[in-house]
Structure formats: structure tokens, C-alpha cells
């Protein structure tokens, strides 16, 4: 008998973050941009840390990124990820100046370097949840 995989952790989406998660489902990486001073911020939150304005627009990231750091997960701290190990989790600098943590999707094992160029992609976990992923930039 095969054991059913337990479900992966799901985000507890708030009013502050709903546009971010809705954007991912449309394969768009949306970031908050302060309407008053233009500061970009991430992760989603109510207030601009530069001018303390609540007013914000959601702008689409261009998808360009580079390696800030990474880890390779070998131990399953959550049983839902066990079958995917080892997983490279990359801390990436987005071109817009904020960061993203996402799994690296590669065909073969790679040796990463700080500053290496990446491209944002999308992974439809199920019809109601899409998470960002990172791929090596083929032009990089």
C-alpha cells in the first residue's frame, strides 16, 4: 500500500499579501511599490518603510535575478518535501533590489557562485497555489 503524501505547507494569505499570491497564479511576480515615494518592498506588508505611506501599487518584476546565497536541503524537516530532496534553495537578488527565496530548477546538479545570473519561473503546485522558482539564466 502506498502512503499518501501529506500536503505541503500552504501560505496563510492576508489582505496585505493577496495580490502577490493572485499574481503568482497568473505567472506574474508582483512587488509592492509605494505610490508616494516610489520605494519597492518585499515581502508584502502594509506600510512603506521609507515614508510610512499605506498607498501602494503592485508592479511586475522583470524576472531577472542573481545568486545572493543558497542552501541545499538534504534533510526533510517536513514530510511533504521528502521525495524532492536534495533541493537547492536559493536566496536571490531581484533586479528590482529586493530578494526572493525559491527552489532552483535544474536538469543536473550545478555548482553555484555568488552573483550568478538567474531567471524567475513559476511552479503550479495545484490549481489554487503557484510558487516562484528560479532557473539558471541560459544567457548568463
Amino acid at each position, binding site marked *: 500500500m502506498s502512503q499518501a503524501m501529506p500536503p505541503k*505547507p500552504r501560505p496563510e494569505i492576508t489582505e496585505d499579501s493577496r495580490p502577490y499570491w493572485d499574481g503568482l497564479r497568473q505567472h506574474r511576480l508582483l512587488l509592492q511599490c509605494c505610490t508616494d515615494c516610489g520605494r519597492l518592498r518585499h515581502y508584502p506588508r502594509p506600510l512603506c518603510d521609507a515614508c510610512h505611506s499605506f498607498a501602494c501599487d503592485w508592479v511586475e518584476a522583470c524576472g531577472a535575478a542573481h545568486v545572493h*546565497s543558497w542552501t541545499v536541503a538534504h*534533510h526533510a524537516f517536513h514530510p511533504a*518535501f521528502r521525495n524532492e530532496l536534495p533541493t537547492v*534553495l536559493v536566496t536571490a537578488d531581484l533586479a528590482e533590489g529586493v530578494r526572493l*527565496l525559491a527552489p532552483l530548477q535544474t536538469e543536473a546538479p550545478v555548482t553555484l557562485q*555568488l552573483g550568478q545570473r538567474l531567471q524567475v519561473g513559476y511552479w503550479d503546485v495545484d490549481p489554487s497555489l503557484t510558487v516562484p522558482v528560479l532557473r539558471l539564466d541560459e544567457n548568463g
Partner: protein
Amino acid sequence: MSISGRAAVTGIGDTDYTRDASGRSALMLQLEASLKAIADAGLRPHDIDGIVMPIPSGASVAEDFVTNLSIPDLRYSAATPLGGAGSVAALQCAAMAVASGICRHVLLPVGRTGRTQRIGARVQAMPQFRTVGEFEAPVGAVAPAQYYAPMARRHMELFGTTSRQLAEIAVTTRQHAILNGNARMTKPITIEDHQASRMIADPLRLLDCSLESDGGAAVIVSAAECARDAAKPRVLITGMGEGHPDSPSTITQRADITRLGIAKVAPRAFAMAGVAPGDIQVAEIYDCFTYIVLCQLEDLGFCPKGEGGRFVEGGALGLGGRLPVNTHGGLLSQAHMAGMNHVVELVRQLRGEAGQAQVPDARLGLVTGYGDLGDGTLAIMARE
């Protein structure tokens, strides 16, 4: 008026540290350690008039201690939920309570049956982890090792820090645990053992990680003037504080991920105590992972940023080394008591009660906490 020297740690107590407390509840372990600490201070339970709970310890609250210890007039209760920084944060909280005259003797209990719940599930239930729970757990980062490993990796890439240097910390800490007599790990390890241990979250191997443990540890913080007649040498808290990193809810968004919150408090606490890192004779440094020790040594000012790897080489953290660190075996090899075992050990060292691991004539030392996603706490203590 400065709070420096206004509070003393007058009592310390701990239980046996085990893999499985064989049916004893977290509250029972906290009470066992508390009774020992109260007796060590030469007090009776009814003398306790304040309680600071350093971490959510099971489901127990200050009221449980009033009931079980029959405390007639509890004047102050507080909690310092800073994860592993909570025990040293509780020292400051208690010192403020006694320096202000609200309390005379404050109890700080920790006790846990840590192995009963998976670490990933436990941290995701803590409000401090809400942000990473929403944005990082769904992509696969669910546990502290996975959140902290990118800090170590970037340190390695920028400064050339190596896994063998992290191993030096694990090996030395194990040597100290063996001397302690109340430690979960009692077999020596080598750098090669560390290098052969399985990878958990690269670059962190199994022997870079602390031990989920069952047990209890507690201390009593008293107003300095109430400690004058105590039987044991008076150990004063002369410098203390909290340091919260930039972007405290997620390491990912922090401008400099090689710098912890303790970098902010270190200059303040050393100035309060009127001493410098070079004066410190013994240091109990929060060691949930080896890398966190290395980074704190830099952020405390024992060496410049990036030189922690070279600083720890050659047994420098051992007895007789340039800075004896975690002389009890730490979280890595004694037990994970959220750092209250570090506080207990520093007081033992400064009283001259540290047995085979005693640093000769230790009169000045420090203890740190590190919690959640980079919070730092620091207390500097001196024997009179």
C-alpha cells in the same frame, strides 16, 4: 542611574539532561530546576516575588509557579519570547524588575520536552515565524537549519570560511561536554567525524546542529543589595541588552545576512560594563549551530568580520585556549535548554564551581542568546 551592577544571579539549578525525560512533563522539569535554583540562592519558594518566562515552555505560565510553589505575593510576571535569545533577554527583564524596586528575587525557569514535536512544526506555530511561514515554508524552507544555512554559505563564499573551521567548534564543545558530567553527548569526536556526518542543510552537517533535549534549567535574579549576605560569591550582571537585526522577520530580505542582531547590542553592553572583549575570560555563546557561534564571535568584537574561521582554529575555544567557549558543552553537546544552561554555566565558572572545566580564577565572563531569525542578547557578568 545605570542598571549595571544592580542585579545579581544568586541561584542556579538544572535537572539531568536526557533524550527522553521518561514521563516527566515540561512543567515538572521547570519546577525541579526552580527548586534547585531557589535552594542554591539560600531562599525559600515564598521569597520569590517575580517570574520571567524566557520561552514558551510547554504550556506553562507564571500562574503554574504561583500554584505549585505557593508563592504568596507575586508582584511581577513577564515573558521574553525571543526564541533562543529569550533566556538572556529574561536576565535583562528581571534585572530591570529588581533595579526598579518592584521585586527582590525573580525566578527564570526553562524546561522542555523538545523531542515530542518536530522542530519544523514547532517553529511554524510561533508568531515570530509568521512571515517566513507564509512566504518561505511553501517553497520548502521550513526549519531553522534551512533559514540559517544561507548565512553560513555566504560567509564561506565571501570570507573563505570552511566546514573544517565549523568542525573545530563542534569538536571543542564536545570535549567540554565530556568534562561536565551532565551532558547528553559523552563520546569524543574528531574533525573527520564532523566531515563524515550527514549533510542536513548545506553547509550545515549533523554535527553542526544542536541536540533536541529534555530537561530543565532555572536561575534566580536578585536585587544586588539582597544578595550581599548570600552564601555563594555574588555574581553581578554588569552589562546587558537586546539587539534586533534589520529585517528581523526574515533573513532573506536582510541587507547584510552575515551580521546578527548581537552586533548592535555588543558595543552598548560592553560600554555599560566598562570592559572590552579582550577582558573576557570565559564566554558561553548560544550555539544552536556551529556557524552561529562563529558569527557571534565576530559580531561581539573578538575578531573582525570575516576572520571568525581563523579565530576558532587550533583549539582556540578550548580550556587553555585564547577564549574558552561553552565550557559546559553547549546546545551542541550538553543539551538544548534554550540557552538557560549557558547562564547556569557562566555563574558556575564565576563562582569557581565548574569542576574539571573550570577556567582558572574566572572573574569576568559573558553569555549570549540567539533566537528566531537573528535576535541577539548579551549579558556580561562579574564576580566581586
